């Protein structure tokens, strides 16, 4: 029960996080590509309940920032005008979960734009960009993990079950893939592709690239499981009754690999999110004006941004709860399957 609770806890935590990102349109106050050219590199605004005169307000408000006299980059609060914050307001058009058209936002302000996490070089809202960027990064991670698990499972099953020269061939290829300097391969791959790829093509390219590169490790793990399972009595018995290869793989062997596959998936998703971020950071991901966590961090390659605008680091923090969630889930899964194995079926424990 305790283990089950742990698993549920992490799972619910992750579902909630993903809902926030998937519903970015609602949680983000603005369109992530909308530029406010009067306000580049605006620091995060503070939300007040107490005004400059010391009076308490029930409705939270903020003071717009203005440029300090004679400066191009120093901002100060304009305490003359307090802008109240409204919840569940109407704002920019968006499609919730990519389908439902809506204009409802969690919060917003009338008369002035609110930058909770500051703005970037073009005066775009950093919070909106992080939320929408998460859609790209997480989806790339999830789809990439899906592709990898599928490839890994099929290749691992084939190698483990059929054995012999097929096993040797597939495993040598897997080792080759583990040894390849894949980042440089991706650079080379990008150089061959047409000059300008649209956002969708670029995204699919990233997913396929990540997916193709990562299948070797799950394949080897699955193969290991298959090697032990296929010698077990119930498999031999089924074979003795004339079960076909496909039936055996589907009914008896594949379910046994579920623990390995699920745990691997939970570990691979954050890894692949990181891979997407690496590619985007180096300019191989989705193009401007779309955001992803990687290309949001790419501005930090400039020394002036690095030392001047601390809020440009925030996209890096956004990944922390996700990574924590996935790794927690992975360890809960692992423990759960282990105890399940030990208590329900004796004699076999995880390799």
């Amino acid at each position: 029960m305790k283990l089950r609770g742990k698993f549920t806890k992490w799972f619910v935590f992750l579902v909630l996080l993903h809902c926030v990102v998937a519903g970015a349109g609602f949680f983000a106050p603005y369109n992530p590509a909308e530029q406010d050219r009067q306000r580049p590199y605006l620091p995060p605004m503070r939300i007040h309940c107490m005004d400059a005169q010391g009076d308490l307000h029930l409705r939270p408000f903020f003071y717009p920032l203005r440029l300090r006299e004679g400066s191009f980059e120093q901002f100060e609060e304009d305490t003359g005008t307090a802008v109240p914050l409204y919840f569940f307001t109407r704002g920019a058009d968006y499609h919730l979960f990519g389908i439902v058209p809506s204009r409802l936002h969690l919060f917003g302000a009338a008369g002035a734009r609110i930058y909770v996490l500051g703005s970037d070089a073009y005066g775009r809202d950093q919070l909106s960009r992080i939320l929408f960027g998460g859609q790209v990064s997480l989806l790339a991670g999830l789809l990439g993990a899906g592709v990898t698990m599928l490839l890994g499972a099929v290749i691992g099953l084939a190698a483990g079950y059929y054995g012999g020269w097929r096993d040797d061939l597939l495993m040598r290829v897997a080792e080759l893939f583990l040894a390849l300097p894949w980042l440089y391969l991706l650079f080379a791959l990008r150089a061959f592709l047409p000059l300008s790829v649209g956002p969708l093509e670029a995204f699919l390219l990233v997913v396929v690239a990540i997916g193709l590169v990562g299948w070797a490790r799950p394949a080897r793990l699955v193969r290991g499981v298959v090697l032990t399972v296929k010698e077990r009595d119930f498999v031999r018995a089924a074979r003795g009754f004339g079960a076909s290869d496909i039936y055996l793989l589907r009914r008896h062997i594949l379910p046994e690999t579920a623990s390995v596959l699920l745990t691997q998936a939970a570990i691979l998703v954050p890894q692949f999110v990181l891979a997407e971020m690496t590619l985007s950071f180096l300019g191989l991901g989705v193009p401007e004006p779309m955001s992803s966590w990687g290309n949001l961090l790419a501005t930090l390659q400039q020394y002036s941004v690095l030392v001047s605008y601390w809020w440009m680091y925030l996209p890096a923090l956004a990944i922390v709860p996700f990574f924590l969630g996935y790794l927690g889930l992975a360890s809960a899964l692992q423990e759960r399957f282990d105890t399940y194995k030990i208590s329900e079926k004796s004699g076999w424990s995880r390799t």
Partner: protein
Amino acid sequence: MRKDRLSPWRCRITLSLLLACASLLTLPVRGFAHPQQASAQEELLAVPGETGRPGGRLVISLRAEPKTLNPLTAADAISREVIGAMQADLVHINRGTQLTEPALAKSWKISPDGLQYTLTLRQGLRFSDGHRLDADDVLFTFRVYLDESVHATQRDLLIVGGKPIVVRKVDGQTLVFQFAKPYGVEERLFDGWDILPRHLLEKPYQEGKLGQLWTPSTPPNEWAGLGPFRLKEYVAGQKLVLERNPYYWKSDAKGNRLPYLDELVFLFVPSADAQVLRFQSGETDLITRVGAENFSVLARQQTAYTMADAGPGLEYNFLFFNLNDLSEKSSADVMRKQKWFRDVKFRQAVSAAIDREAIVRLVYLGRGAALWGPVTPGNGRWADASIARLPRSLDRARTLLKDAGFSWSMASNGESTLVDSDHKPVEFSILTSASNADRTKMATLIQDDLKQLGMRAQVVPLEFRSLVERVTQTKEYDACLLGLASLDFDPNSDLNVWLSSGGTHLWNPSQPHPATAWEAEIDRLMEQQLATPGYSQRKKLYDRVQEILAENQPMIFLASPDILAGAKNSIANFHPAVLEPYALWNVEQLYFRNGTENTRR
């Protein structure tokens, strides 16, 4: 004969530098004795400015190694910057005053018909190895520059009216330059033609090896120049060390021979950010070519150094469309789009939609100027003030597009898309250089500006060399954002950009015949001003060129950055100019206020 005498001679000079003053007096005096003071036969050029104290070692970072130290083949800014500190020309453009001043030639005379220039050389000039310079060296130099087999990079500028300049020697100190046609630039022409040592280069020239000569790794004794510094040491991948030229021909107001500095060290620091860090930590003494963002970082915490904004320079950034005559099979997609690009109203609409003020504010943090023509505000003498500086107007852009047959269609997601007369959506990509964050930022701003017209532009940052290849060789691109920096205020320095036959005529380079009537008109005007003496006449012609460019928008001019530089507080005579080499133009006058503070390694 002379060569035999040279080596013991030089030994003695080197020795004399190392020994103290007392021992110097014991050396025989042969026309020049104490390098610090001028001898009677020498005509040093006294330059105005703060009188300094000798000694010290100035360290500067360069973003790449100089490819060559050979003035004949140097084409890149880095090589030119280093060579500028090592070589000298006959007549020089003072980067501070922007006017010509005597250099190796102490005076010049132009004949009334403008065809004959008589130059008189300074007395007692010597190369950095102590060898005397005379008119034969100048004759040799121009013979080499004009020799087609040498492939001198700026050879075209010495061809006036289709004929190369003829140089004649009158006597040891006097030369006559004969032109086929009057030349509008007049004596500014002589700037940048570094005089070469015949005694070192004649043999390699006859053997045809001149092009490969003088790399940074050349041994210092095989190299000689007339600039303030001479070659001392080169460590590949690390640094290039120059030492003071004891025979330099300039002095300060008090008659002390320049330069003040003992050594000039160029460190190779590849990234702009790393250069800023080195300067911040005090490892380098001076920094040039600083970007606006790094400048504001440095300016915010300046204590040990001073940052200077010299105002808008001569760099102009622009967007241009592919207007090349393409062959049918190679690029059908680009050819389809060229139908829009060739329409002047389309280009004018793009120009009208671009928010130049935002570019200056966001890209240059206000340290720059918006542009509507190729001549930047930094060049007030040649800029055409009558060019309309139209503010951004989406309405004007929409009217122009409507007139040109474009219309808008509502997409399913509520976005309006610009479509051409065949109902094809207007989409194109803009190339920028991946290593230039400023230009990528400009392109991203333009992308957003054009989106409001319903155009879909993609920004494609590309490695610089492959970008240049696409633009000038394969011509597989839609639009491109680039910048060019004029080397001089005079319009002739950009001849290669405006002439339709020019290699830098970027939107359609190296045309055999001008493709359009207005390009033919520009060709005619540029050639006419080339042969017209007198500023006001030339200005009228060049103004017309600027107006044609502003009207036809083959390049959509965007903005020009300020020239930004910085130096340690202890460095005096630091007056950055808007012309290359920015803060190093008066390198012979730079000195450390607190003496030889920086002599340590």
